[in-house]
C-alpha cells in the first residue's frame, strides 16, 4: 500500500482528537497561568502565581487530595474483594447461576445520582429507614453529619454502585481461564482453598490489575456521590479533589486557579497510577 494521499484520511480522527483532547489540555495550561476570576475575566498572564498559591497556601486542596486517595483506594479494594467473591461464587456451578449473575449487575444499571438521592433518604438521621430500624436497638448513628461516619457512608454507596462493574470484569476473566490447570491442581493435592491461592488468583492477576487500574481511575473522580450525599460536608470532611476544584472553578469562578489545580491533579494522577500499575504488576505477576 503506497498511496500518495494516505495521511489525508487521518484528518477526521485527528481533528476530533485535537478538538476534544489536545486543545482542552493546552487551554487549561494557558488558563492556569492567568488570573481569570469573576471580577477580572480574561486570559491575562500572571506567571506561576496560581501554582505558588496552590503549593504554599492551600492546605484544603491537599487535604481533599489525601481524602480522595483514601476513599478511592478503600472503595476499590472493597469492590475488588467483594466483586471477586461474588464472581467466584457464580463462576462455579451453583443453582440459579444466571439469576444471580443478572442480579449482581443491577446496581450498575441504575443512575448513580438518583441512587445516591435514594441512599441519602435511606441514611437520613431522623426520617431514614436505616435509623428507623436501628433505633429499635437503641442506636441512631449520624450517617451524614458525623465527620468520620460520613466518609464511611460515602464508601458504602460507592462500593454498592461500582462493585458490579468489578464483578463483571472479574467474572469475564474467570470464565476465560483454561480449565486444565484446575484439574491438575486437584489431582496434585491442592484443596479448594489452596487451589484458589495458588492457581485461580495467580491466573487472574493480569485481569485483576486491569480491573483495579480502571476502577482507580474512575474512583479518583468521585464527585456525584459526594455532591448529592453530603455536599462535601460536614465541613469539608468528605470533600474530594474534583469536588473542591468544582467549587473553586464553577461556584467561585476562580477559573485560573481551578485550572492550575486541575492540571496539577492530572499530573499527580498520571504519575501515581503509573507507579501503582508497575507495583501491582511486580507484586502479582512477579515480573
Amino acid at each position, binding site marked *: 500500500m503506497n498511496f500518495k494521499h494516505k495521511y489525508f484520511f487521518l484528518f477526521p480522527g485527528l481533528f476530533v482528537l485535537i478538538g476534544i483532547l489536545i486543545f482542552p489540555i493546552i487551554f487549561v495550561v494557558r488558563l492556569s497561568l492567568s488570573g481569570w476570576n469573576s471580577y477580572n475575566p480574561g486570559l491575562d498572564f500572571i506567571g506561576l502565581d496560581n501554582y505558588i498559591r496552590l503549593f504554599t497556601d492551600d492546605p484544603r486542596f491537599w487535604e481533599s487530595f489525601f481524602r480522595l486517595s483514601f476513599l478511592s483506594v478503600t472503595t476499590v479494594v472493597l469492590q475488588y474483594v467483594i466483586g471477586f467473591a461474588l464472581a467466584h461464587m457464580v463462576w462455579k456451578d451453583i443453582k440459579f447461576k444466571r439469576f444471580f449473575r443478572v442480579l449482581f449487575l443491577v446496581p450498575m444499571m441504575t443512575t448513580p445520582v438518583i441512587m445516591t438521592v435514594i441512599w441519602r433518604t435511606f441514611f437520613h438521621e431522623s426520617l431514614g429507614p436505616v435509623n428507623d430500624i436501628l433505633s429499635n436497638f437503641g442506636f441512631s448513628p449520624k450517617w451524614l453529619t458525623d465527620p468520620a461516619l460520613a466518609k464511611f457512608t460515602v464508601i458504602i454507596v460507592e462500593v454498592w454502585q461500582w462493585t458490579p462493574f468489578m464483578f463483571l470484569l472479574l467474572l469475564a476473566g474467570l470464565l476465560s481461564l483454561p480449565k*486444565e*490447570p484446575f*484439574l491438575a491442581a*486437584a489431582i*496434585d493435592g491442592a484443596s479448594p482453598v489452596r487451589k484458589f491461592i495458588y492457581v485461580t488468583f495467580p491466573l487472574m492477576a493480569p485481569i485483576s490489575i486491569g480491573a483495579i487500574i480502571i476502577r482507580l481511575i474512575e474512583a479518583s473522580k468521585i464527585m456525584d456521590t459526594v455532591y448529592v450525599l453530603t455536599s462535601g460536608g460536614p465541613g469539608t470532611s468528605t470533600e474530594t479533589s474534583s469536588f473542591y476544584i468544582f467549587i473553586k472553578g464553577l461556584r467561585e469562578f476562580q477559573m485560573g486557579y481551578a485550572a492550575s489545580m486541575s492540571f496539577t491533579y492530572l499530573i499527580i494522577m498520571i504519575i501515581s497510577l503509573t507507579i501503582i500499575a508497575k507495583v501491582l504488576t511486580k507484586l502479582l505477576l512477579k515480573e
Partner: protein
Amino acid sequence: MDLVANNLSYKPDDQYHLKDVSFNFKEGNLYTILGRTLSGKTTLLKTIAGLLTPDSGEIEFDGKNFLKIPVWKRNVAMVYQQFINYPHLNVFENIAFPLKQRKIDQSIINEKVMDALKSVGLLGYENRKIQELSGGQQQRVSLARSLVKNAKILLLDEPLVNLDYKLREQLRDEFKNLFSKGLADETILIYSTTDPRETMELNGEVIVLDEGKVLQVGPAKEIFENPNSLKVAEISNDPPMNIIEAKISDNQIRFEGIDVEAPQHLNKLTEDGLKIGLRSSDIELNENGHEFEVELAEISGSETLLHLKRGDTKIIVSIEEVLNFKIHDKVKINFKIDRAYAFYADGKLASSPFGSLNG
C-alpha cells in the same frame, strides 16, 4: 494395597460412559486400558482420580471407600493427553507444585524436583517458562510432576497421542524404562491408549473397553492371541483385523469363489454365518495367489497398506516395504490361513490359531 472397583456406571446423558465396570488392580502392576476414542477410557481414569463421581458402583483402595475421599486427598497422579501444566509457573515450580501442597522441606523439594527432571531428561530447563517448551517437553514436565509425588496410583491418559511419531516412539521407550525401574514396585500404573502396538509393547495387563463396557481382561499376549470377540479383535489390531464372511465345508474355506484348505483348528467348524478373521500382516503378495483389485494404497512410514476388493469382500493388506500401486490395479495375494481366526455369527470367538481360550 489393591484398587478394587465394583460395577461402576456413569451415565451423564442418554448414553452410558461406563457400564458395570469392575476390576481388581494390584500394586506393582501395569494396567493398560485399550479402547477406541469415546470408549470411556478417560471417564474411567477420571473416576479413579476423583474428578468424576460414578452414578453407581464403588471403588475401594486399601480397603477404604475411595469415593468418600476428595480428589486432593487421594494421592493419585495423572498425566493427560493434552499437556496440562500451570501456565503461570516455570518448569521447576510446576514440578514442585504437588510437593508444595504438603508440608515438605524446601531442600527435599529441590532434591526431588531435580531427580524428576533428570528422569525425564529435562535438566537445565528448570527456569524456562512452560510456553517456551515444545509439546514433547511439556508432556515430560507433566510426567515429572506426576512422578515427583510418589503417588500410589499413577494414571496416564493417552499421554503420547498428541505427540508426533518420532517423539512418541522415544517417549514410549522412556516410559517402559521408567515403569520397569522400581517405580512400579508399590505403584498401580494405569495407562490408557487407543494404540494396540503401544499396548503390546508395554506388555501389561490389558483391559479392553468399548462403549463403557469391559470386553476382555488379560495379559497383552493373551488379548493379542485370543481376542474373545470380533470387537476385541478389531480394537486390538491396527489396521483392524480383516473380517471375511465364509463357509467351511469339506475342509475348505469358501468365499468369493476362492477355496482355501482349512487348517486343523478351523476344519471342524460347520456353523452358518461364520466369520474368518485374518490380520493384515498375515496376507502376502504372491504370484500364484488369488486376484484382488486395488481400491486404495497408502504408504505409512516404511509400510504400504493395500485396501483390496473382490466381489463384496474388502480386505486390508500391510506390506513391510514401500510399493507403488495404482487404483484398479490387479494384485495376487495368498492367505496365511493357518493364522486365521474364526468367529461365530454373534461375534464370539470360535477358534484361534493359538489354541482355545482358557475354558
